[in-house]
């Protein structure tokens, strides 16, 4: 019970922290996804330009934009958190306080992520309302919609564990931003965030299905679009990779903390 109250107050304080600079926070969350969406919109507009009847692997222009609008919503919920400060906090010795408080650093960081996720959900909900109001996306049945949200939240947990790893590697690396950029680019391409996986060679999709990438964007988007997907496989594979990264994070932290010098104190 006392532990739940520690988590709860950390979540509440994190809300206050996240929203201390409202405009900055809003731009940080929605900015990258929005810019990315407009880049894709322009890309696909150019491809379909002048050929209104063009259908690429079952996608006409409207279907393609629907796909990318849902990808935009999914990325807001699942891939908004970047553990931006984690590596810097380690490098500049700012995690010292958390090593002294009787609340573990990973607990603090995870509670902070949970609070972020609640705000993120609000922003994603608002975005969806606007898109729905203007008829830009077609909402699935309530049952399917709730299922899709639950699945996307599950993916966000996986994304968090992977981002956490790029952060704790700062015990060894001077800069970890390059890792995060590489991870983002690879996941954009392999998750179907830029090009739907239907357009990829079959052998590649078969291979990718064993990696976590297709489940980050392609599968949740298909779920929201009301298409049949193998959810059991998606959940099992993401669960496997989440546990895998959680274990790696634990081992990396255990070794890394021995190298920590608390610089600048």
């Amino acid at each position, binding site marked *: 019970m006392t532990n739940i109250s520690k988590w709860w107050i950390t979540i509440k304080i994190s809300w206050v922290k996240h929203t201390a600079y409202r405009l900055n926070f809003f731009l940080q969350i929605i900015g990258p996804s929005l810019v990315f969406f407009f880049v894709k919109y322009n890309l696909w507009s150019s491809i379909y330009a002048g050929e209104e009847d063009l259908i690429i692997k079952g996608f006409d222009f409207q279907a393609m934009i629907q796909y990318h609008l849902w990808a935009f919503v999914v990325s807001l919920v699942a891939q908004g958190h970047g553990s931006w400060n984690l590596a810097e906090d380690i490098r500049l010795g700012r995690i010292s*306080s958390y090593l002294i408080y009787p609340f573990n650093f990973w607990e603090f960081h995870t509670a902070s992520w949970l609070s972020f996720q609640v705000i993120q959900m609000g922003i994603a909900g608002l975005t969806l309302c606007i898109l729905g109001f203007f008829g830009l996306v077609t909402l699935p049945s309530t049952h399917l919609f709730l299922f899709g949200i639950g699945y996307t939240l599950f993916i966000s947990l996986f994304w968090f564990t992977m981002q956490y790893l790029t952060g704790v590697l700062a015990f060894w690396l001077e800069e970890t931003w390059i890792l995060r950029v590489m991870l983002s680019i690879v996941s954009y391409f392999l998750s179907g965030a830029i090009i739907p996986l239907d357009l990829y060679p079959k052998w590649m999709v078969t291979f990718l299905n064993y990696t976590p990438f297709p489940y980050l964007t392609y599968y949740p988007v298909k779920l929201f679009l009301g298409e049949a997907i193998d959810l059991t496989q998606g959940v099992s594979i993401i669960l496997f990779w989440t546990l895998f990264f959680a274990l790696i994070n634990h081992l990396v932290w255990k070794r890394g903390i021995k190298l920590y010098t608390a610089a600048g104190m």
Partner: protein
Amino acid sequence: MSDEILIKAQGLTKQFISYKKPPGLKGSFSAFFKREKKVKDAVKDFSFEIKKGEIIGLLGPNGAGKTTLMKMFTGIIVPSFGELKILGSNPWERDKNFRKRIALVMGQKSQLWWDIPAMDSFLLLQKYYEVSDEAFKARIDKMSDLLGVKDLLHIHVRKLSLGERMKMELMASLLHNPEVIFLDEPTIGLDLVAQENIRRFIKDYHQENRCSIIITSHYMQDVQALCDRLVLIFDGKKGYDGSLEDFESILGNEKSVSFTFSAPQDRENPLWKDYAATWNEDTTHVDFRVPEDQLRSLSAQIISQCEVDDFATEKLPIERVMKELMNNPEILRQHD
């Protein structure tokens, strides 16, 4: 003070590894393939004990290893070698019960959340340390009253002055009534009044709670006002461990005195001739050192025989000793 030992360090050593890089582009290129490793002992073979209720001043020049010791004591960094037990625990194992019994205040680093009012941070810490609502309220009321920050509790930390922030840092670290408190330069950068307030608060808090305190500071006033015992560290090694009185007498039992006269004096006067006196140009001001047991009688003679405008004895003998030792650490070896 009780005989119960709260901190015991035996042969504590911390090594830091760095890599040498030759200057210039060529150096950068060759260092990319082959780097020369450099191992530095930040703390070497450090042993000591602290009893319950003691206040220890941990002194030394910059880079001597004071803060590294504090980091090891609080479990922030892991010692390379040696044994360390604090309240019966190994600090770097970071057992939650151990963490509830200690506190650390870093003068150079804020532990409060910058973007929220101090009270929000206190509420968070109340939950972390599992402090009851009654105890929390009573401690906040009392400490904020003593430190004069009652009106600042709901202001964002980033908007507080350095002195105000330090008071909040102290409050945050004492909310859970720790048994051992580590204060790393708690008065750094503060004005004289703020320094005085912080010192008085720490002293009163210690008297009331009988906790053990280790304090590092470059201000000798802090040490003089608070500490019973001094531990000196030079180049990672312990140089001195003893009482304040013994420390003051490392350079001999002499006191510095100064007199300002209303008229020029004769340098050859037997009153001061034998004391290697330092005069100003017009011989109206003199400084010299005199054995402690002769101070009272000699001063009385000078005041009765000469027209003295001002007379002063040294306020902080430890400052002089410290300066001398920092310039010449060899003295400590001779003293041993």
